[in-house]
């Protein structure tokens, strides 16, 4: 298998890291991974066949999975796998029209850019789909911080459907604390009661909550959701009190793995530092998830498996 040239490798790594750090638009790390892969196609000069190109991209994907800078490794993995899948699909499509390698590459870069542009709109679509699930004067519990959830709440606040928002506070400091603080300030400035609550008090509060909203790191094939630690507990409590649990995520977070227990979730998704310290992610089983609200619409957990099979077997 041809290895990515060293210089190319470094360039792509820098590209990726730079984009993550200068992430002013709050683009998801999965999309940044896709952009890196697209960049890899652009700067690739030495491959002469399609298979070589695909091999190169596979290597870049592995490279990205090893970068330690982001805690969100799950979404990077699923995002890059999805992009590779789209690439293969696009290639077989393009090949029908012309088999000249350079033309194929050009067409690929075009379509890849289009694909990424569509992906960027995913969060918006998911947010819009969510609005129908917010009841009037909703009292909402949010666990963990996710940009998709934050956007959804902002939009709901603008539409005037929220009564109050409870945001749980994780017991250890995390990188999202600052952003979360900002988000809460925004919402309370918009006139909605905002409470930051301890994770321990979720069961106590559950009787006065209408809707529970979770973000997702990744969604596995059974419809179970990997998200910030504590989500499992919140979902169990919601189930006992018969409150709906909605997970807002984009469809490129669907992952092709099938963990059945917490122990089977890959280490990368749970820990930031080897397996020392506290885990940062856990698995919420599909039976506790009422609906997954994605850019494809509101899906039941079973639909994730359907979607993945159709995507990866066609």
């Amino acid at each position, binding site marked *: 298998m041809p290895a990515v040239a060293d210089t190319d490798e470094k360039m792509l790594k820098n590209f990726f890291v730079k984009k993550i750090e200068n992430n002013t638009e709050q683009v998801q790390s999965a999309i940044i991974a896709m952009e890196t892969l697209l960049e890899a196609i652009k700067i690739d000069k030495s491959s002469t066949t399609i298979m070589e190109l695909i091999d190169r991209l596979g290597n870049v994907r592995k490279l990205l999975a090893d970068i330690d800078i982001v805690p969100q490794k799950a979404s990077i993995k699923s995002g890059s796998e999805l992009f590779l899948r789209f690439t293969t699909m696009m290639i077989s499509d393009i090949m029908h029209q012309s088999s000249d390698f350079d033309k194929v590459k050009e067409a690929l870069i075009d379509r890849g850019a289009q694909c990424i542009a569509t992906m960027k709109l995913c969060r918006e679509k998911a947010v819009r789909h969510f609005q129908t699930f917010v009841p009037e004067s909703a009292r909402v519990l949010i666990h963990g911080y996710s940009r998709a959830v934050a956007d959804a709440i902002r939009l709901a606040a603008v539409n005037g459907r929220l009564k109050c928002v409870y945001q749980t506070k994780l017991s250890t400091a995390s990188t999202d604390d600052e952003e979360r603080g900002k988000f809460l300030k925004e919402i309370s400035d918009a006139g909605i009661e905002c409470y930051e609550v301890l994770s321990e008090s979720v069961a106590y509060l559950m009787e006065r909550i209408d809707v529970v909203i979770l973000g997702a790191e990744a969604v596995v*094939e*059974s419809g179970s959701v990997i998200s910030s630690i504590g989500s499992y507990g919140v979902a169990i409590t919601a189930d006992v009190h018969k409150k709906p649990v909605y997970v807002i995520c984009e469809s490129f977070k669907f992952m092709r793995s099938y963990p059945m*227990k917490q122990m089977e979730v890959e280490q990368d998704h749970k820990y930031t530092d080897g397996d020392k310290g506290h885990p940062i992610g856990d698995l919420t089983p599909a*039976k506790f998830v009422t609906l997954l609200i994605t850019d494809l619409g509101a899906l039941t957990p079973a639909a994730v*498996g*359907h979607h993945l*099979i*159709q995507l990866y*077997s066609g």
Partner: protein
Amino acid sequence: MTKELSAKEKKKLEKAARRAKVVGDKGVDVEAKKAEAMRKKEEAMKKKQEEAPVRQASPVPKAASPVPQVAALQAEGVPGRTRKISESQSIDPRRLLKTTKTQQSQVELTEPLFTYMRNTAGIKDTIQTMGFGRKDMFSRGITKNPTQLHRAIVRLGFKAAHLSKIDEREMAEKLKRALELFIDDFDGRNFNDELKQHHRVSIQQNFISELNPNINFISKCHPMTRSEACLVDIVKEAARSRQARDKNLAEFKEFLHEELQLFWKMRVDEAEATIANETFNLITDNSTVLTFGDGMNMVRIFEKASRLGRKFEVIVVDTEPSFSGKRVLQCLTEAGIQTKYSTIAGLSYMMKQTDVVIIGARSLLANGSVVGAKGCGTVACVANEDQVPVLVCCETYKFEDRCAINALDIKNEIREFPINEHITFANIVQDVIPASLVTAAITEVGIIASTSAATVISENERKRKDIAFETT
């Protein structure tokens, strides 16, 4: 009126009718004999009614199949269901096979429960009447098998009707061999005879019209499981396909053989190997696996995992009446795997020691339910209570496009299991595990949620249509 005839009378009338046909035109004698028989019957009936009214609820095997009875009665002029069977014509198995299933059920089963399920009640006698019975093998005068049924199929059906427990995979293999023999012997002999009045009938239609009575016979002898139905479908589809047109006889047969072999190799054998690999990845070292039921599939899978170096323990759970888990136990012990054995009574105790439940399925339905050996629903329930994942191994050719929620399902089957003459055992053969109790299905396309079976089915349909389009 007709139903009150006891079995012996019916048989007498049958024999009389048959002899009449053999003898032929000695009309007067025949009439006289029949009148006599009629008189005797009436006398005997009076006696019987005095003796024991309880005898009317006599158990199943004594009743003969309806059609010869009707034929005999018809000849006597007793009003009843009229079906004309000319006297010179021998008993045609096709007509016997046309008796409806529900008619059989109502006549044969004394138990009013579960009559909607498929059953093989009375089949042994039907086979005997058709001339294939054990006792009648060397007697003459009984019908020779008219050209419709192939000998391999008859053998298979006969064996199947007499077995009390059937391993599903073995049956599929036997059916495959029988079909191969059938294809080999197919020679378009009946090309001109029956279809003379039609214009040229193609080899394809001829093949299918010859295959159909055989398949009907088999499905009466023993209700076909999903794997067997799939085999038959493959053969029929290959026969009807566009690629089979314009082939001469030899090419046609070769094509069918190829299709059958390809199907078996890819979707059965290789699929099983892939599933064995996936299962190997799911069994961790020093874990305890619980298995249930009689499939030799699971034995092969566990043997492979053990050969590839995993150390694990297997608990085999078994049920009456056939205790087919004993064979599984024997095979696993011979393969050197540490095994424990328990009947289903000890299930909750064994479940405490289990890490994962892996069972074989006969079919996976579109709503995610799993059809398996009876008792597997219980195993899944108990596993759920103890938070033990339930994994089901199923090749994709066994996926079925229907839904069922529990075992009281119309495609389920009752098989006779004689205990003694006073007890009828409702031996329901299959069980349905609801989708919510199944953690995942292990198939050759990977580990999927059982609810995704419907998508796999539709994807396969789509691909088949694409291929069909491409070859036109």
